[in-house]
């Protein structure tokens, strides 16, 4: 069953067909229910898969920190590819992790939407400046994997200016000052802010050639005190010469294989064809219509070996075309009292 589904998904990734999404999603969900008993139990207790992609019970993304939600057995050599969420102050035990033994679907699908959204449909090789660590340095980062794969396929040259120590400003400055032709910058919001701060110091870096672009990901995750989105864009224009319409936000997460892109900052995220969003009421889990704010749930066809229906902690609103505007995160409830929190307990009590 998996082999046949994998083939259909690969075909979908290469030639997306919106009309085929629903049937494929149900087949994927039914396969996951069978192949991943923990998810099967969850779905059974939640009323079953249902009849459409948006009736498949979504698993809360927090469970990726609790369980190995992968239907394939771990490799005997222990060298499974594992993507992890960024570190938390609570330590390793609380990081979400997704084991991805077969990366072929991920890799097959990512280029097309990236070329369309970030490169404006222009595949001609350009120089890239990555403010995301190289996948060799950060093999557990799905973002590093994505940029590594895309760079290999699409860039004429890639300068990796961030490592575990942080931003290598000299390297970034050199990349921006040398060469000719437009450059593509791939950055998290924090890394881009660090770059702009560094470039504000002499020597002055010339503005980039016309057509240069930025892919921006990650957001500020509760640290909007650092800089607002508007200020960041203004500085990108002022310091790099890249206008706001060529700064393309990307939305992705460790738990998913597909991504979404917005035309520019302030515009909604359009999911790539293998991904769909829906919004549910945070209190009741009831699906909400377009225009109403709630929790973002996703169905990612490409998560074949994991779980496709995922409920995030992100808040957002959909438009009539299924595009997503993010409205922040549903923050954890405030601790009230001197008890160990669930997170502290989890880090204290290991699996036997």
């Amino acid at each position, binding site marked *: 069953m998996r082999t046949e589904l994998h083939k259909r998904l690969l075909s979908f990734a290469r030639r997306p067909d919106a009309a085929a999404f629903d049937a494929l999603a149900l087949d994927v969900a039914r396969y996951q229910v069978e192949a991943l008993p*923990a*998810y099967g*139990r*969850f779905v059974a*207790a*939640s009323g079953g898969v249902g009849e459409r992609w948006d009736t498949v019970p979504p*698993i*809360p993304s*927090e*469970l990726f920190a*609790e*369980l190995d939600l992968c239907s394939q057995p771990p490799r005997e050599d222990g060298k499974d590819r594992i993507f992890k969420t960024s570190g938390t102050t609570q330590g390793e035990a609380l990081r979400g992790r997704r084991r991805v033994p077969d990366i072929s679907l991920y890799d097959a699908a990512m280029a097309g939407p990236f070329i369309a959204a970030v490169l404006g449909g222009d595949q001609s090789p350009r120089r890239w400046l990555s403010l995301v660590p190289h996948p060799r340095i950060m093999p557990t980062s799905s973002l590093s994997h994505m940029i590594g794969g895309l760079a290999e396929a699409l860039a004429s040259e890639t300068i990796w200016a961030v490592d575990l120590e942080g931003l290598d400003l000299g390297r970034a400055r050199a990349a921006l000052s040398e060469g000719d032709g437009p450059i593509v910058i791939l950055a998290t919001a924090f890394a881009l802010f660090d770059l702009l701060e560094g470039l504000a110091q002499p020597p002055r870096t010339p503005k980039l050639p016309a057509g240069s672009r930025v892919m921006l990901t990650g957001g500020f995750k509760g640290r909007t005190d650092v800089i607002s989105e508007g200020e960041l864009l203004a500085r990108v224009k002022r310091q790099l010469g890249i206008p706001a319409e060529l700064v393309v936000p990307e939305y992705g997460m460790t738990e998913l294989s597909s991504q979404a892109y917005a035309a520019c900052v302030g515009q909604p995220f359009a999911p790539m064809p293998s991904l769909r969003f829906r919004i549910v009421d*945070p*209190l009741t*889990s009831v699906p909400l219509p377009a225009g109403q704010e709630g*929790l973002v749930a996703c169905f990612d066809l490409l998560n074949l070996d994991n779980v496709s229906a995922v*409920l995030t*902690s992100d808040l957002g609103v959909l438009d009539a075309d299924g595009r997503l505007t993010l409205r922040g995160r*549903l*923050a*954890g*409830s*405030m*601790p*009230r*009292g*001197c*008890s*160990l*929190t*669930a*997170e*502290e*307990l*989890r880090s*204290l*009590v290991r*699996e*036997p």
Partner: protein
Amino acid sequence: MIAADLLRATMAIGFSEPVARRGLDAELAVWDDTAVRAQIEREVGAREPRPKNVLVIAARTLPASTMRQVYAARALGARVIVKSASGQEAIGEALAHADPQVVATPFASCDTAALDRTIGESDAVVVLGGDETVESVRARVPLAKHFVPHGHRASAAWLADDAPDDALRGLAEDLCAWDQAGCLAPQWVWVEGDVTRLMTRLAPHVEAVERALPMPPDPRVVHARRAASAIALTAGGQVTTTGTAMLATHPESRARGSPGHRFLWLLPASLDALTSFAPHLSTLGALAPPKALPRHTRLATPGTMQRPPLDWAQDGLPLFASLVRAH
């Protein structure tokens, strides 16, 4: 009688008025003059010197925990400096308003100069908080001063599936008191026998208790519970909800953190699981002690878990003697 500003400050943390009243009343009821004098006599006797100034650092804890430490120091005749947690300054101010010998000293946790200054004014320092807070304060307290650390702990219950209804009613009260916040609230129950049976029997008792002790709905709480209930369901457990609470079974016995706000795990009883969690266990709600009740664990009848008596030596530290202990 509860002071109005203390009640308001407690409700501002997020508790409904009935929950705040019930919790504050329970703590105040302990502070009977005769009982306090007798307990001081038992713990301290004529031992001198008693502290003249005590600093109580309350790191985002329940008002009841702060009240207990403040009142204990006051009962020994000390002046008390209260450093409330950020965002909960009103608790310290309310305690100070009721007693001129209590001084609320708000300062940021990162303000080490203010911390050193207040430590310098004190003979004894009581810290309520997480390990990181406790250790950071400990490092600044001179050896000559008493240091009374109370780190974070968790509590649980241990009941048979045929436990009497009184015990289930008591457990429901322990769950709903302070909305399950604090280190004395049960986060899970180790069940001897049929775990699902106990869950089914417990639910109506929770429903009865929560009618008098409402908890306001909060989407953040619902979301946290959704994840916890998914953990139960993926493991083959069962989940039941009442008006404000969620009860979930899990086939494994190991201690399992609840997201709080009235989410109770029901786990198969296991002495191994109890023993392995012992260093972090504050109170065990049970009708009789299991065979291996860990040292320093308080055994409480269901219904009294969140109502510790004056002679409770939290973390093995007697309430009054820990402030007077000889150098």
